[in-house]
């Protein structure tokens, strides 16, 4: 993609270095802490699985029992139980689900327990690495078959088996990515439900079994269509690291994994969120999963024209946190959206300029582009027109991941036919515009060039303000998305744990050693 905007390289570099300075104190806070969810994810990668009769998952039973020992990490105690009782992982999980309390066993042989934990961590991460290799092979086998950008479609029936039918139909129609939207409020559960589920509201529970069912269905339809169909789920919430662990174990390809979304839009405690996002992103980095960030949310809650700079600022912060978790640029699906008020004259030019700006500032990142939702009114015909312009901008600016707009947005979760209309519209526009982006240049002092410069300038101003205030204080003061979140407020603070010098986590150590953490 040729550059069109003439953005100042110095300003872009200054923004990146400000993002580094803003994130640095948060990163050192993260280094000193773990959380219940981080420990549960660690145990999941070591093999903890299953649930008791009430549906409480084994990782929760284990970590809750070890509550007082979490400053040292849960891994050693899980392995200790295996060594002390001579059980297999499956047997231990069953015992825990029947009420066996891990904390009641004294540490018998520390060296043996550590060796056992290392073995389990190696085995879990080995499965993740094998999944990554399997994905890479399929992508190589079907090279060139996916759309550019990838067409991303959502299914949300509440019933995983109904979701499979919808997903299969969408994939056959041309979808490259299937996202299974989670049931309302799953992000507020401090556990991940167990098993296949058929009841959800506005979406389907994210469970490991549901991941497995959808993965198998998409692999099947992918073989028929000679195209790799990517699977996506959502990690924001109180179980961010566990969803990432389950996704890594079941070969998800993308995960919604914003560094601040949970704080701002779900009122989850900021300390907890920052700690959880780091570990979840390390898992995603290792698994070769592409993260998607949630900047579109800034535009649905605030004005898309006035607040465009908050999107760019958040992209710089998400990028910095992603580097610090070992993600590479090709894994950073930074978010943005086409949400401007359609009654603004030249709104299309501003959207086009901003999408091009994101592309030029983040040239190696796939960029996740979100469709109009805020001004979708129930007029399905006007909605399709807006989606068409969105499709145009996406193709013309080389976006990587294109979430298809639905003409029935604001009416219902998509019908099968709504998705087909969306795919057909996008494929037509993208075929018709195939070389448009390479064939045009922007007027040097035109509306679009000036808009992009203006947004970058405002972003720099905002980042300077953030650096002065400090990120956590800025969130507490309501500088993001017009919501103020007190540092000690929100959900999940009780699951935050300060690490002891003795803290030991073989999964984290292996991840840190394998990843290009910057």
């Amino acid at each position: 993609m040729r550059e069109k905007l003439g953005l100042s390289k110095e300003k872009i570099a200054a923004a990146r270095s400000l993002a580094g300075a803003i994130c640095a104190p948060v990163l050192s806070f993260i280094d000193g802490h773990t959380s219940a969810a981080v420990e549960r994810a660690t145990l999941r990668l070591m093999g903890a699985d299953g649930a008791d009769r009430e549906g409480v998952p084994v990782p929760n039973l284990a970590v809750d029992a070890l509550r007082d020992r979490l400053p040292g990490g849960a891994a050693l105690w899980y392995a200790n139980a295996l060594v002390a009782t001579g059980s297999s992982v499956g047997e231990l999980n069953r015992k825990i689900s029947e009420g066996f309390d891990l904390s009641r066993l004294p540490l018998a042989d520390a060296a043996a327990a550590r060796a056992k934990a290392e073995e389990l961590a190696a085995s879990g991460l080995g499965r993740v690495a094998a999944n990554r290799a399997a994905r890479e092979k399929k992508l190589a086998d079907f090279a060139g078959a996916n759309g550019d950008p990838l067409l991303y479609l959502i299914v949300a029936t509440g019933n995983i088996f109904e979701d499979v039918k919808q997903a299969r139909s969408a994939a056959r129609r041309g979808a490259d990515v299937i996202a299974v939207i989670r049931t309302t409020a799953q992000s507020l559960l401090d556990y991940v439900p167990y098993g296949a589920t058929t009841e959800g509201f506005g979406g389907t529970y994210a469970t490991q079994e549901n991941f497995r069912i959808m993965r198998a269905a998409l692999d099947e339809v992918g073989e028929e269509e000679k195209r790799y169909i990517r699977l996506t789920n959502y990690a924001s919430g109180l179980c961010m690291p566990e969803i990432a662990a389950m996704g890594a174990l079941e070969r998800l390809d993308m995960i919604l994994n914003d560094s601040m979304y949970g704080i701002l839009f779900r009122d989850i405690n900021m300390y907890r969120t920052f700690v959880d996002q780091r570990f979840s992103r390390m898992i995603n980095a290792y698994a070769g999963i592409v993260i998607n960030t949630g900047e579109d949310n800034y535009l649905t809650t605030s004005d898309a024209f006035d607040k465009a700079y908050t999107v760019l600022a958040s992209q710089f912060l998400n990028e910095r946190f992603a580097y610090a978790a070992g993600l590479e640029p090709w894994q950073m699906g930074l978010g943005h959206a086409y949400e401007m008020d359609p009654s603004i004259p030249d709104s299309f030019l501003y959207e086009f300029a901003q999408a091009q700006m994101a592309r030029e500032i983040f040239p190696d990142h796939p960029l996740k582009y979100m469709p109009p939702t805020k001004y979708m009114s129930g007029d399905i015909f006007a909605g399709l027109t807006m989606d068409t312009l969105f499709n145009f901008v996406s193709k013309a600016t080389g976006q990587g991941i294109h979430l298809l707009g639905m003409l029935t947005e604001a009416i219902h979760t998509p019908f099968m036919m709504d998705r087909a209309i969306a795919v057909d519209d996008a494929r037509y526009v993208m075929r018709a515009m195939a070389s448009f982006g390479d064939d045009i240049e922007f007027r040097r002092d035109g509306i679009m060039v000036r808009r992009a410069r203006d947004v970058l300038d405002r972003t720099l101003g905002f980042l300077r303000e953030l650096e002065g205030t400090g990120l956590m204080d800025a969130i507490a003061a309501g500088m993001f998305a017009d919501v103020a979140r007190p540092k000690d407020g929100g959900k999940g603070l009780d699951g935050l744990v300060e690490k002891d010098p003795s803290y030991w986590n073989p999964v984290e150590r292996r991840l840190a050693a394998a990843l290009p953490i910057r």
Partner: protein
Amino acid sequence: MARIVRPYGDTLDDGKVQLSFTLPVPSGARALEAARELVLGWGFRECEIAHSAPLDDEFTFFVAYAKTERGIDFDAVTADSGDAEKPMAMDDINDFIRERIGRKVVIVGACTGFDAHTVGIDAIMNMKGCNHHYGLERYPMVEAHNLGAQVPNERLIEFARKVRADAILISQVVTQKDVHLENLARFVELLEAAGERGRFICVVGGPRVSNKMAAQLGFDAGFGRGTYAEDVATYIVKKLAAPAR
């Protein structure tokens, strides 16, 4: 006097209707005929299947045009909405409050239960409003408190007591499988149990909310799609000023 109206295509009383739907059958001649007969079975007089396409092996999409002879007596219809009367403009509402109520009107709003979609309550309450209709925070004579999303009923009521609210607005966006109904009913039950139902004007809003549904649940009014702050404010201030309260 009856005034019968029918759908209008390009000629008065031609009764033309456009439909689109999906059937769980493979596409083909049989599917086309099935769709046509189905539309006729719904009572339409003519049906043309303008477009059909397979969505999957077992699903076919149709666009159909049909003609109906059924009409409706428009004069006999009454609107189902708390906003049936024309809303006042923002400045007029503030003047009305100054003259007829003589103090600021306190309005508390929230998206309750598990619903995390603040788009509705924000459109009504935020300073900026929606579609160039300013929200209640911009009204000088309104003290507006927007508690945001996922607010438990108990907390909303407690807050309304604390600020001595005149009205409580609840937004419900997620309505799949009627998850919102139970939560709304529970809100009214809590107020009734505390003997405080009469203390607040209770209003519910959302894309799938109707005034009829609101009344059934024990709310004073319900506002659906296309509602702006002035619709809600007009209703509240008139009800506050009405002598019957």
